């Protein structure tokens, strides 16, 4: 038996860890260094788990759980781990461009191309997607008054598939390297002729496998929202975050198939010599561009809509007012979801369509700004004459308002094909999409973490540390990305490895400084977390309603019990909990308690993750026996599993009663705290409501 039978095309030379020893240079030091950081980080985690005896805890409490709340937290944790990599790459990239004048940069051009490809892939698929999926996981069942997702095991499997994608991208750091064709991986540049691998193969399999996970998440969320709402909660009585989640789910169901199809066709081209996107024998690269952006544009709204949902909840809560124009907001969200399928071509206006086609897509793109504008006005009207508390979420909201509007306007500029021709493929584009994704999506997520972290862990995040971090994000963003509009207009092509115009230099230096501020802001998140953990006693809000919240998740203790609600709540209006509080009778108690059945833990998600990671790795490296074994193992596992009744855990009524009554008693013993003391130790999560007038 030959080595290639066992290891495919994997060879010692692919071990990036050793590159720096084989040919020492700054370039290899950076790539090997990154690989070593990852490997040593993984080893450190393993050592810690072993020394602290935490393996059982990790397996039983987290990896095998089907509790939507824990799955949500795991998604967000994954997002942060991957974000560390994405931000580090961002800083290296800004350093590169600041030194790229007349080709003097400190990395090879190949390495630079790899950096912008992984940065984009990681940030979109393994930071932004896990963040929004995590939030939807955590919040949907709590907000609609359900005990879990419609398909709890499928939910865990989705997480496993997302983990597979992230794992493959991380493995590429140490073994063989990633592709160099940007996060969109356009063939034929990423085809077998120009790049035999393994980079594009890593991309294909991480995207395709995690894409299945995202599609199943969308399916799960949509079915949960359609079928599992508490009795009385009509569609127009759903919290607005659930509306945005529903629209995102619909987009996930319809927009992920194009990505899967594009990825698998690319794989067929690369592995079996098909001719979908090749230069010769009838292949057509434009099919790839169309498929990719049929996914890619809805994807933008998949990411941003849940953030809109968070901002909507945020304005209403922290202005102590009912959301102004709920119905228009719902309609705007739905309009965006529908129109987002009709604009994909604006990503390649310059690639040879007729002017009339470009015009049609340009008009559609401009139209989609209208519902987005509606939203901005809805939020402004909600804040208008509200009792605004300038806490950390509102700081993020302020940054969002100003910066996101700039990003939105640059989008409208780009919607015009004639202007688009002038600035396409320049730094202007880089500025634009960072301008919508960072202040839009990421600020929304961080604001959301400040709001819902106390729900998940029972203590608030430290307010001053949070505010400083938020300001760092805002300043860092502005300095890093706003200068790129200018250099873009001056004609600096994006992704270029070097530039010759000294006029770009000052902008590059400002941008580099901004990147370091963003790095500090990212560290600020962990400093905030550390300070908060240290002061968790004075920040504790176990009673569950620290912000005078409006929706059902605040009517539970923090953290909520695994069954969420002792009995499924009855809903009679929008903002169900706010209404109860305004009427002076919150915390309605059940007349009788019943046993609660919850799905039992299962290792299905881990089986899927391990086998699909092996499958993706094997197909990347042509290790055919492993690919066959992994695929067969996966099918066999589910075949056999289907023969067994899926077990449930029963929580006895007496236990539910004990937990619930202990909470209610604590509520009665605690003096409600009004909004002026929201931010001090007196806030134990029992809000003296401010809503009697405002609602």
């Amino acid at each position: 038996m030959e080595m290639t039978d066992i290891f495919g095309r994997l060879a010692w030379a692919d071990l990036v860890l050793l590159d720096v020893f084989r040919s020492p240079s700054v370039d290899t030091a950076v790539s090997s260094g990154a690989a070593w950081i990852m490997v040593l980080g993984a080893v450190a985690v393993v050592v810690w788990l072993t020394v602290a005896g935490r393996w059982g805890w990790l397996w039983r409490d987290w990896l095998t759980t089907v509790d939507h709340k824990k799955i949500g937290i795991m998604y967000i944790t994954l997002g942060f781990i991957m974000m560390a990599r994405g931000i580090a790459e961002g800083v290296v990239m800004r350093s590169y461009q600041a030194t790229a004048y007349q080709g003097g940069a400190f990395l090879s051009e190949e390495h630079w191309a790899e950096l912008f490809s992984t940065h984009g892939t990681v940030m979109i698929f393994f930071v932004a997607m896990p963040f929004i999926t995590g939030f939807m996981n955590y919040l949907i069942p709590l907000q609609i008054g359900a005990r879990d997702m419609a398909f709890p095991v499928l939910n865990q499997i989705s997480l496993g598939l997302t983990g597979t994608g992230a794992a493959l991208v991380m493995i590429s750091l140490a073994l063989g390297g990633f592709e160099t064709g940007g996060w969109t991986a356009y063939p034929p540049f990423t085809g077998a002729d120009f790049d035999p691998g393994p980079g594009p193969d890593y991309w294909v399999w991480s995207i395709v496998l995690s894409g299945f996970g995202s599609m199943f998440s969308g399916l799960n969320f949509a079915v949960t929202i359609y079928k599992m709402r508490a009795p009385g909660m009509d569609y127009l009585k759903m919290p607005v975050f659930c509306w945005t989640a529903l629209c995102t789910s619909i987009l996930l169901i319809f927009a992920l198939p194009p990505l899967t199809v594009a990825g698998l066709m690319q794989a067929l081209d690369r592995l079996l010599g098909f001719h979908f996107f090749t230069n010769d024998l009838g292949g057509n690269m434009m099919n790839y561009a169309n498929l990719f952006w049929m996914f890619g544009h809805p994807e933008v709204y998949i990411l941003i809509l849940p953030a809109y949902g968070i901002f909507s909840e945020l304005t209403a809560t922290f202005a102590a007012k009912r959301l102004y124009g709920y119905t228009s907001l719902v309609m705007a969200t739905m309009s965006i979801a529908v129109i987002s399928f009709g604009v994909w071509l604006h990503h390649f206006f310059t690639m040879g369509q007729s002017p009339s086609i470009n015009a049609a897509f340009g008009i559609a793109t401009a139209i989609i700004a209208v519902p987005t504008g509606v939203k901005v006005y809805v939020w402004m009207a909600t804040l208008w004459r509200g009792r605004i508390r300038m806490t950390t979420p509102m700081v993020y909201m302020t940054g969002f308002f100003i910066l996101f509007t700039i990003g939105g306007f640059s989008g409208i500029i780009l919607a015009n094909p004639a202007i688009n021709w002038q600035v396409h493929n320049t730094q202007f584009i880089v500025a634009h999409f960072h301008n919508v994704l960072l202040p839009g999506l990421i600020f929304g997520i961080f604001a959301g973490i400040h709001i819902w972290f106390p729900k998940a862990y029972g203590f608030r995040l430290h307010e001053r540390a949070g505010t400083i971090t938020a300001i760092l994000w805002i300043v860092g963003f502005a300095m890093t990305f706003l200068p790129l509009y200018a250099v873009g207009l001056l004609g600096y092509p994006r992704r270029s490895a070097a530039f010759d115009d000294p006029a770009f230099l000052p902008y590059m230096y400002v941008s580099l400084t901004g990147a370091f501020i963003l790095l500090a802001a990212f560290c600020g998140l962990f400093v905030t977390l550390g300070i908060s953990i240290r002061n968790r006693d004075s920040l504790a809000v176990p009673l569950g309603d620290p912000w005078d919240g409006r929706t059902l998740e605040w009517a539970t203790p923090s953290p909520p019990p695994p069954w969420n609600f002792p009995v499924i709540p009855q809903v009679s209006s929008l903002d169900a909990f706010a209404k109860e509080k305004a009427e002076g009778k919150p915390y309605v108690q059940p007349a009788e308690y019943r046993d609660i059945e919850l799905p039992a833990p299962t290792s299905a998600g881990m089986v899927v993750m391990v086998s699909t990671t092996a499958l993706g790795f094997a197909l990347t490296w042509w290790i055919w026996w492993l690919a066959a074994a992994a695929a067969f193992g996966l099918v066999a596992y589910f075949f056999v599993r289907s023969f067994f009744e899926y077990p449930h855990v029963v929580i006895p009524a007496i236990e539910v009663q004990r937990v619930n009554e202990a909470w209610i008693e604590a509520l009665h013993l605690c003096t409600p705290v009004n909004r002026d003391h929201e931010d001090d130790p007196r806030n134990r999560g029992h809000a003296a409501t401010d809503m009697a007038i405002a609602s």
Partner: protein
Amino acid sequence: MSQETNVHPGMNLGYTDGEHEAEVKVFGFWVFVMSDLVTFGLVFAIFGTMAGATAGGPGPEDVTDLKSIALQTALLLGSSFGFSWASLSMKYHDQRWRTLGWLAVAATSALSFLIVEAIDFRDWYHMGAVPQRSGYLSALWALVGLHGLHVAGGLVWMAAMTGQILRYGLTDQIKSRVTRMGLYWHFLDIVWIGIFSMVFLAGVA
């Protein structure tokens, strides 16, 4: 959500608590089928754009053997027909052998479909109509192959259902699974009708 309406009379579960659970699962499966239909739709669209991209190689008139296609169509529609009878017998008769018999008819018919399809693939291979030859052939193999893979997956599913019916009888859960399998099976028929008319009939028209 309401327990009073019998939303899935086809399953004959009666007015039980299981009704809501079955409703959620069947609805979820509809959503999956919808997403899968988008996948097929996209592969159809790619096929459409590549229909002329034969690059001087074999074209539709070379790969289309209408006799074989007619036989495949009959076998696949026959399989769906057999499955309908399995569903009906599940609804009206609580006899596992009756349902299993019809499932066996459906499975045999689908397996024969796959064999005839495989013979077609072999013939294409021998005439040099391999996917590596041209964009058109790539799209043809991918589209027909994707459908074939779905049918093969369905056969594995049917094997699992057969084993479960033998072991547990026609329980509520198994009825719900057979109902979902039926959705999948008839959906594959509809896709085949698309392939039959768009790929083969239109190819030689």
